[in-house]
């Protein structure tokens, strides 16, 4: 029950922070970290996959509506919600019957960093290529992906390192 409420609060809070704070960061003119995906990262490992897909879609659509990106966030968010379980299986070995919430403590530092980095890069790559919708100026797009992914990863890991066990 607590977990349920926690996730609802997190869902709303992350959307508000993303839309009203982070989308207004104008550092260097093109840094815009997308940390709303933290919601998807922090769903429990055995959370029903169909539900996580639908939640990711709803969250993406809401962010899209606020930033006039029409489905781009929805697409990238659903993609990482789907790839989350395979990625977890690659980097960690969860015991039978356990259902941990991903964090430094449950996954171990190295595995957790790998988990976050992989999914953030997948999300940002999809997002920025769909935004430009083509392969012109590819160097510029790649630079955007790398810098934005770096900032997003630092923020997400930062939030986690303040969390207690």
């Amino acid at each position, binding site marked *: 029950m607590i977990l349920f409420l926690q996730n609802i609060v997190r869902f709303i809070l992350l959307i508000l922070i993303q839309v009203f704070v982070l989308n207004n960061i104008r550092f260097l003119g*093109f840094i815009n970290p997308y940390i709303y995906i933290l919601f998807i990262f922090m769903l429990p490992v055995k959370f029903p996959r169909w539900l996580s897909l639908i939640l990711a*879609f709803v969250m993406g659509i809401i962010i899209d509506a606020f930033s006039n990106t*029409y*489905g*781009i966030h929805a*697409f990238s968010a659903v*993609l990482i919600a789907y790839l989350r379980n395979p990625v977890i299986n690659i980097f960690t070995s969860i015991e039978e019957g356990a259902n941990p919430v991903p964090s430094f403590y449950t996954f171990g530092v190295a595995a957790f960093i790998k988990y976050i980095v992989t999914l953030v890069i997948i999300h940002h790559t999809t997002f920025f290529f769909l*935004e430009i919708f083509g392969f012109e100026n590819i160097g510029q797009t790649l630079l*955007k992906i790398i810098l934005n992914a770096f900032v997003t990863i630092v923020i997400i890991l930062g939030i986690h390192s303040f969390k207690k066990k």
Partner: protein
Amino acid sequence: MRKLFAFLFKYSVAILFLILEVISFGLIVKNNGYQQSVFFSSSNTVLASLYTVSSSFVEFFYLRTANEGLAEENVELKNQLVTLQNQLSSYLSHPSDFQRTFIAPEKEISFIQAKVINNSTNRTLNYITLNKGFRDSIKVDMGVINEDGVVGIVSNVSEKFSVVIPILNPKINIDSKFKKNNYSGPVHWEGFDYRYANLKDIARHVEFSLGDSVITSGFTDSFPEGILVGTVDDFKIRESDAYYHIKVKLAVNFRTLTHVKVIKYKNYEEQKNLENIAKE
């Protein structure tokens, strides 16, 4: 049949995944053009109201710059008023001349004042939301300017709000020309720095120099001729190129944008109708 259900059940997650991705992709492709649906955009009333609240906080920080700009514009307008009054009085002393003067039809415009309630400069596809909609007689395709120069073109209108595609969005080109020699080309933004855009299609033989003004050409219905777009900041041309690469410093500072004017062109319908008849 049972096998079919078993199959569907086994792959239900993958199927749901595909369905959601197809829906998202459909939205992206359908709205990748210039006209977009109002529902999923920030001209949606609920979202726009939220933005109105948040912008009332942010606006406070930009009041000072906005005031300075308005004061400057005020002085300029006063000066123009004096000149016009003088011209008018000279015409009035020769009534026969006065009757023969018409206003050029392409210059019959008026302005609608609007406030920016949401604005981005840091993405590839930037948009601006304004607090005026079709009840204030704003329509799609109208040009938007502020006291410094061209801002963008209206793309979506709801009852109380409208969304503008600014120059800072690769989806639009602003038809522009050099003020001094009338050579024209589109101004296009590449998606990186909110201060600079590129002027294209200027051939090798055209003469111009750094600091030259680039103004709107007046060939589109959105802008009358002569509104400042920016100034030439840098240019280069390689041996093999037919056209210059011209970097234009935009006149408008998009980061401090608070108040804008939407251009209402009175003869829009008449001109459009005539052009459509000619095309048929």
